[in-house]
């Protein structure tokens, strides 16, 4: 049965914990969501510099020494390259149910419309980053790194996020039998 991920959660979890420790030793803990703002800021500084400079949030990432391609941005870029290369090498061993752009579980509930799935994915993405920036971090920066540092803010984020996400998932897949 080829239904399980390529490596076990034990192996992946231990590797993740060691990687987080290494990152904290070398530079700083893992984080992702800030880099979406940095990317926006880079683009804004190119196409609309006056707006970028006058925006309170973008201008935080607007001084040449601070914004742009730093450690954090390279980390996220690395995730794309590292994930992509690993996916190319191990594609054959990825469970069928995890391949492709139309998750079978989604299709069983909402049908085969690609527009529907991509619209939901897009809307979800908007909410993710809006929420992450309001809260100050995402699954990486708050939950994994923040809780590991025993930060009070990250425990608040972790608990709130899981409660709401579980409720939302149960609502989306209500009346689905199981």
């Amino acid at each position, binding site marked *: 049965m080829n239904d399980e991920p390529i490596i076990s959660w034990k192996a992946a979890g*231990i590797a993740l914990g060691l990687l987080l420790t290494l990152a904290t*030793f070398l530079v700083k803990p893992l984080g992702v969501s800030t880099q979406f703002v940095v*990317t926006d800021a880079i683009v804004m500084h190119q196409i609309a510099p006056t707006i970028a400079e006058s925006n*309170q*949030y973008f201008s935080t990432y607007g001084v040449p020494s601070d914004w742009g391609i730093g450690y954090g941005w390279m980390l996220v870029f690395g995730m794309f390259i590292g994930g992509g290369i690993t996916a190319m090498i191990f594609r054959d061993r990825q469970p069928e149910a995890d391949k492709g752009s139309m998750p079978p579980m989604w299709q069983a509930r909402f049908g085969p419309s690609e527009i529907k799935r991509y619209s939901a994915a897009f809307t979800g993405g908007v909410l993710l980053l809006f929420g992450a920036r309001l809260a*100050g971090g995402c*699954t990486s920066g708050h939950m994994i790194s923040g809780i590991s540092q025993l930060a*009070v803010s990250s425990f608040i984020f972790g608990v709130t996020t899981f409660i709401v996400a579980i409720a939302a998932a149960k609502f989306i897949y209500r009346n689905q039998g199981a």
Partner: protein
Amino acid sequence: MLTLLTGFLIGCAFGAILYLGGASSYRKILGTLMLKDMTVIKLMMTGIGVGSLGIYLLDLGGLANMAIKPAYVWGIVAGGAIFGVGWAVSGYCPGTCIVGASEGKKDAVATLVGALVGAFIFSMAFPVLDAMLMQNANLGKITFEDVLGINGIFIAIPFSMAMLFMSFFVLKDRYE
């Protein structure tokens, strides 16, 4: 330059772990949120268990470059709730949508583009949100070390044990 390369290599490893562990899978994420397939939560809790111990061991030698986020309660609760809905709707988080996109998953690309838009909207709304939710009820950059007033390692050891115990022995998949 070395810092950039370090960031890139750490990112590569992070992306590889998320892919190999199945964290970029809609099925696995929703499985966890439906409380049926515990793979992703067990992965996270194991990572936190190892990471918290690792970081506070480093801290004993003054070698941990920590980055504590401020605890402005209302902004975090509101942001966390919005994030939670986005997580359940898209099936990705900001990190895993990048890995999903790198696999060529088009729904992950849609989430990635949405995320860039979401970050833009937030930046535009920042002055209002900041005044409303992010300045008040701010407890500062505190950890449980500050709250309990004891060295963090004495919290990290039992916390780490609890996380690992939960993942290895308590949480079980529940398929009907």
